[in-house]
């Protein structure tokens, strides 16, 4: 289970935020559901050779956001509210913000960007269709 995560220590994003994003994604994609247990801090630290305080920090922040629930003497679990807070739209918002920023710098109109996004969707769909 700790092996589900992947960390890139040299990415600009700090490791605690990489972990938070991955937990949210696992919940959004249904791989973690309400009540499911998270690996212990020690298990993640040992499996990925990362500082335990970094893992604790990510868990504490997810707990503060209501995504995870701390259980006395037992593993952290996915909270009831965690499922709602991990809406797919919320997860893709940072990527969209980045796209819009780059589009502005390139002086593209919203219509041009939407058209390009739709075209990208179509190529992805058709290539997946072929693979099946």
């Amino acid at each position, binding site marked *: 289970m700790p092996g589900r995560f992947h*960390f890139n*220590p*040299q*990415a*600009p*994003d*700090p*490791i*605690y*935020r990489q972990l938070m994003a991955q937990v949210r994604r696992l919940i959004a994609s249904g791989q973690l559901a309400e009540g499911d247990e998270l690996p212990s*801090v*020690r298990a993640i*630290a*040992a*499996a*990925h*050779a*990362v*500082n*335990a*305080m*970094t893992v604790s*920090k990510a868990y504490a922040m997810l707990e503060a956001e209501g995504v995870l629930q701390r259980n006395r003497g037992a593993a952290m679990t996915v909270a009831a509210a965690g499922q709602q807070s991990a809406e797919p739209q919320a997860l893709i918002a940072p990527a969209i913000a980045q796209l819009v*920023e780059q589009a*502005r*710098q390139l002086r593209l109109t919203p219509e041009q960007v939407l058209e390009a996004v739709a075209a990208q969707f179509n190529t992805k769909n058709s290539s997946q269709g072929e693979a099946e």
Partner: protein
Amino acid sequence: MNAALIETEGLTRHFEGHGYALSGVSLRLEAGATLGLIGRNGAGKTTLIRTLLGLSIPDAGSVKLFGEDARTLSTAAKQRIGYVPQQSGLPGGYTVAGMLDMYRGWQPKWDQAYAIALMERLQLVSNQRIGDLSVGQQQALALVLALAHRPDLLILDEPVAALDPIARRTVAAILAEQQAETGMSMLFSTHILSDLERLATHVALLDHGSLRFVREVDALKDDIELWRLPAGVAVKNVPDFPGLLRRISEPAPAVLVDLAQGASREALESQLSGALQVQKLTLEDFVVESLK
């Protein structure tokens, strides 16, 4: 209040004809924290580590370990420390097992079962002569000898420099486990930033014997950004503003900023009447920029 594990004040060390190896270095390491010490070759990392341990005497300044003066450290305090020097310096005629026995006699809290488990993970064989081990294996053995009494403070000088990538990852995992289990604090010097980013809570940059900064790794990554200037704006035309760390003209005009010191992108964009392009920096990028 618990004393800091390490506390130095104005450490200064001057080498005849070579200038300052250390110049006014003041730093603290709190319980549970791990400090990665970086800097170019000759920046003073090894001198700082040796001075912390009382192996090198400063010309000025003081070192306290666990609140005690490092020069007159009690035996009890010494037994809370583990140290892995850059060159292991272990006697070549001894076997691995013989070395373990010797340390076991010195360290009352020595955990032999743990020492043997570590040896196996690092693929050390007990009847091997130390002189026949590779430099990397000797470094691995020095690590076992420094860890088996489960120190509260582990100090490592370039611990993984001679290790291959697999052994390096094993060492990082061993250290991370020990941190998780016992709350051990560490101070280590390294050139390998990915190890630092895995294990360190704080990073300190030493440059010509002076500390350029000590910061939390996470905060550094969250707060430091590079802003590329709008087309046609020269970097010398950027006014001073809070959080500006440096103006960069090559390869493209940009400014290095610290959000924690109040750098505001909106404010600068309105002053320059153009959009800034934001780039997040890796620790390595930031270190290279800082040393330019």
